[in-house]
């Protein structure tokens, strides 16, 4: 019989790579969130470093640009005492025609222990995980439109921090969902953690119809979408991924789906506003909301370091 085991888990069901939140058991997600809580306090110590990845080499392979994600991965790895090698891969070997697997084989020969991979093609981190040595771990830092699991986990950590319990929440994800790997990872995480109502809010061109299959309520009307919500996750309008006329204009989008104080007033009074960044002020979110008392956008960045420390230490401590 063919093995249908999730490639992220070893035979004991322990996490060895983080490629996608889809298919991960609830207990694994909770374990990472609990571990992240431990690491959050490390950032407040006099010595902001623990030796768990001492002697390990973490290679950041960013085939697509990123500042926040790459930097927070780098901070997380160095706080775990790993050696971090940043490769500006988009401008090096690949540009000279080297294949992805040849690049990985060469870096493995340099004794890499972990690859943190961002790639424009969905599935690239899976390919790497299938072809690297058994002791090497892979973290997906965003692949195409497919998944961005550490962002999904840090979003869950943020929600847990402010709301404690997932099982009584209404979460609205607003904006450019069709291009968003963050939205997909968030939806998988929220449904796995037992959130009873997840809404996808946006225009028909940007909210895929198949979302209802994922247990999500699709709303094309902004007021309906955020009314009574506990958590609002705004997404960036991804101009660089947009081809063709999916939107009349950014101004029109802001009028209908941009989060303003007036629209936010429809949500619960203690609702939190999240955004994976970078934010486009005046496109998907008004400045007064982004900087307002309900915004937790900057805490998300801080939590992101602890969550990435938790992911890297968890997979590094589990053997294939």
């Amino acid at each position: 019989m063919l093995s249908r085991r999730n490639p992220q888990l070893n035979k004991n069901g322990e996490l060895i790579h983080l490629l996608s939140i889809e298919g991960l058991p609830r207990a694994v997600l909770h374990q990472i969130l609990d571990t992240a809580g431990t690491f959050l306090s490390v950032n407040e110590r006099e010595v902001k470093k623990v030796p768990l990845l001492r002697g390990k080499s973490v290679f950041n392979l960013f085939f697509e640009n990123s500042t926040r994600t790459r930097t927070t991965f780098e901070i997380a790895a160095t706080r775990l005492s790993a050696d971090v090698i940043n490769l500006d891969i988009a401008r090096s070997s690949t540009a000279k025609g080297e294949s992805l697997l040849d690049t990985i084989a060469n870096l493995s020969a340099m004794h890499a222990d972990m690859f943190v991979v961002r790639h424009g093609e969905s599935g690239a981190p899976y390919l790497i995980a299938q072809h690297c040595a058994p002791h090497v771990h892979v973290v997906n830092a965003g692949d195409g439109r497919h998944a961005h699991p550490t962002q999904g986990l840090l979003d869950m950590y943020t929600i847990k921090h402010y709301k404690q319990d997932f099982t009584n929440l209404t979460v609205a994800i607003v904006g450019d969902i069709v291009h968003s790997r963050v939205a997909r990872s968030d939806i998988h995480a929220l449904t796995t953690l037992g959130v009873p109502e997840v809404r996808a809010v946006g225009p028909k061109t940007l909210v895929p119809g198949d979302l209802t299959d994922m247990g999500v309520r699709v709303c094309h009307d902004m007021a309906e979408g955020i009314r009574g919500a506990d958590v609002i996750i705004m997404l960036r309008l991804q101009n660089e991924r947009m081809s063709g006329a999916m939107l009349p204009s950014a101004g029109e989008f802001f009028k209908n789906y941009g989060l303003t104080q007036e629209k936010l007033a429809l949500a619960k009074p203690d609702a939190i506003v999240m955004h994976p960044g970078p934010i486009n002020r005046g496109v998907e979110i008004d400045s007064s909301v982004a900087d307002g008392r309900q915004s937790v956008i900057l805490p998300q960045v801080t939590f992101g370091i602890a969550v990435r420390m938790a992911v890297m230490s968890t997979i590094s401590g589990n053997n294939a």
Partner: protein
Amino acid sequence: MSTLHLDAEALYRDLVGGVRGLLQPDALLVGIWSGGAWLAERLQQDLKLGGEPGVISSALHRDDFDKRGMSAGSGQTRLPFEIEGRHVVLIDDVLYTGRTTRAVINELFDFGRPASVTLAVLVDRGGRELPIHPAYSAARMTLPAECRLSLARGDAGRFSFNIKEGE
């Protein structure tokens, strides 16, 4: 059927006296998660020290991380005070190889430089693999490697021992 009988409550009463003898003015109690933390919690009250004791976890400094990974539910360090220049008394339930003690000393120093660190334990079971020696132990014995001994806390906070003497 266990042949080893240890009265945890009787040993705890001895520990109270032993720790009292170790306390310098200004000393801080820090319990090693989990058994030591339970002991420190009760010692803090019985010795009328006021405030809360610290809790320290070995999880981030363990030398067997490569073999065991991040264990779920391994506790979290919580020191509700500054340790810089203070006399710290570490409390643990069972002292065995000394590796946990080594790890928590490293953990402690991530928060500052204490004036001194002392160790008091309920049971010293021998088998040390590092040069670590407690300043006080309520009981000393030599147990075989296959024997597993740990503190349990029952209803109303009463202590007992979990003893597994191997196959």
